């Protein structure tokens, strides 16, 4: 309150609210500043550079500034790029569907059948996987999924297998689930726990059987949270390098693997930038589409 000590700064009481308002505005601006700087420096600027880089050219293994469409034509005209694009979208979509379906019974049980205390513990336990490195969790699947691994050993006792699970699309999906399932369960649980129970009771009261209530009332009410969870699942899977590389065997490559391959083969940073920009555009479309669907209101 250094201002009030100043004789000329203490006018009639009528002025004080305006002054205080002004100061709190400044204070709020100051609070916002760090995030604006952070996002500008580490998100907007690199993004602009990434887009610019996609127009650079590489001569003698050296990247030089330029503005040429060559990289874009090169990449977008190749079949392997579009194969990889289709594969990545397909795998991420499949993972999203599987994770959303698998997460629902768990989230429903936590939200509707468990006490508040149990739910809190369950959510804590669901956060624990994030304590360990994702890479470590993926390598631990090696032990479980390998041809001489835990699952095949157990199946061997009942004269089944061995099945090849590593270096397959199945392996990739398992990896994606490791990454996203706990998060999706948590988001779905919150979404379901926030449902007004009286609406569920009202459905029962109007003759709706419990199973039908889930489809007819619970899911529509939880729609927003479920779509957001699914969008997260898609984004994380779509951009993941570790699972398709280590559990999926990297061939055929998904887009993140394609980026690494492109950089490694002849320092083609600009072409990798093209892939990255295409990925970001795809994710923007999915995210905006998803959020628009999640918050879409009925029109009268």
């Amino acid at each position, binding site marked *: 309150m250094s201002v009030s000590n100043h004789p000329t700064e203490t006018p009639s009481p009528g002025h004080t609210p305006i002054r205080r308002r002004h100061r709190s505005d400044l204070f709020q601006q100051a609070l916002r500043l760090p995030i604006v700087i952070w996002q500008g420096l580490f998100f907007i600027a690199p993004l602009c550079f990434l887009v610019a880089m996609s127009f650079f050219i590489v001569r003698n293994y050296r990247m030089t500034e330029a503005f040429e469409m060559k990289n874009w034509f090169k990449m977008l005209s190749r079949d392997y790029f579009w194969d990889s694009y289709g594969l990545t979208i397909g795998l991420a979509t499949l993972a999203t569907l599987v994770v959303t379906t698998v997460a629902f019974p768990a989230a429903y049980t936590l939200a509707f059948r468990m006490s508040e205390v149990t739910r809190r513990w369950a959510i804590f336990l669901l956060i624990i996987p994030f304590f360990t490195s994702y890479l470590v969790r993926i390598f631990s699947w090696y032990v479980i999924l390998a041809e001489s691994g835990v699952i095949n050993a157990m199946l061997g006792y009942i004269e089944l297998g061995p099945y090849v699970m590593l270096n397959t699309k199945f392996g990739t999906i398992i990896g994606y689930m490791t990454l996203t399932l706990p998060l999706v369960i948590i988001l779905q649980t919150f979404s379901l726990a926030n449902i007004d129970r009286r609406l569920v009771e*009202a459905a029962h009261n*109007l*003759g*709706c059987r419990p199973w039908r209530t889930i489809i007819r009332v619970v899911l529509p009410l939880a729609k927003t949270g479920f779509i957001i969870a699914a969008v997260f699942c898609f984004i994380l899977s779509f951009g993941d390098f570790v699972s398709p590389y280590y559990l999926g065997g990297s061939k055929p490559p998904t887009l993140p693997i394609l980026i690494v391959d492109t950089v490694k083969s002849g320092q083609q940073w600009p072409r990798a930038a093209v892939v990255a920009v295409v990925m970001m555009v795809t994710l923007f479309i999915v995210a905006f589409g998803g959020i628009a669907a999640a918050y879409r209101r009925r029109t009268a």
Partner: protein
Amino acid sequence: MADALVEFDSVVKRFGDFTAVETMNFTIDEGEFIAIMGPSGCGKTTTLRMLAGLEEPSEGEIRMQGRVMNHLPPHERDTPMVWQSLALFPFLNARENVEFGLEMRGVDAAARTKKALEWLDRLEISEFAERDINSLSGGQKQRVALARSLVTEPKILLLDEPLSALDANLVIRMQSMLTRLQRELGITFVYVTHSQSEAFAMADRVVIMSRGHIAQIGMPRDIYRAPENRFVAEFVGRNNIISGTVKSTSGKMVTIAGSLGQFKVAFGGAHQPVVGDAASFVIAADLVHLSTTKPKAGNMIECSLISEEFIGSVVTLFLEAPDGSEFKVQIQERELSDMDLKHMGRVFVSWASDRAHFIGAC
């Protein structure tokens, strides 16, 4: 009297250590408008939820048309409810909300749309049929909720404080709509409320509940004029309760002496006075005569005027009796303006013996 539609037979409901409803016995007749009234936490909503199957009684039986309902799940009952929060489905429009119950009964789309529109029309909101629920006003939502519950033509409609969120003018209009609907349909309404004016204005019979017990069941007028115990007398209306001991009885008259003097009270209810016992009687605030000059004889108390509460044509005066207790008087505003009372001024209240109501020791 019509046949009993619902019977509560020694029904008890416990939540853990807490007993919400304790040995409840009463019947609801077919075509009756019954109000269950009491302060919050008295068990009235629990009673209604047990009727809808949303809670199961811990002990006793609830029978509907002779059939034991205890274990019947809510979706197999035909006991639609209008909720305090209305509980309309926000992802459906007004018409779809009304159709919901029909859809669950397997009515085909064309028939249920026709039926839903009929009901929306009957409740004068057909123009909003295709509107988003959140774009409707409180009163319109209320009507949608009613239509949704009535569209399946149930035998009984449960209402859980449905008007508590509406403004005063709308409440009056909805009250007359509800009573009209109930008469036209001839079905049973069970109406839970904490509002005396709603209960008394609409119900044929009122059940007053207190801490899980039934305090009194009766017609609104009987409950208002002849409360059976102290709780009902205090909860209902503006009553003065005067306590003392029974001095003597003669015929239908009992004399009670207390700190405010001796009073003669007519009795004829359930309570029998015994000389020497503690006893109380009730004198309603609107049955008291107020004067600035001392009456010649009869029941009277000399008081001083503390404050007044003006609510329109009727004024409530708060007086202080000689022993420090509060005494309430309700008189017409025009009478009061003729009287020229002063703050802390002396006034006399008096009443005829047959106006007072003996409630015994309770």
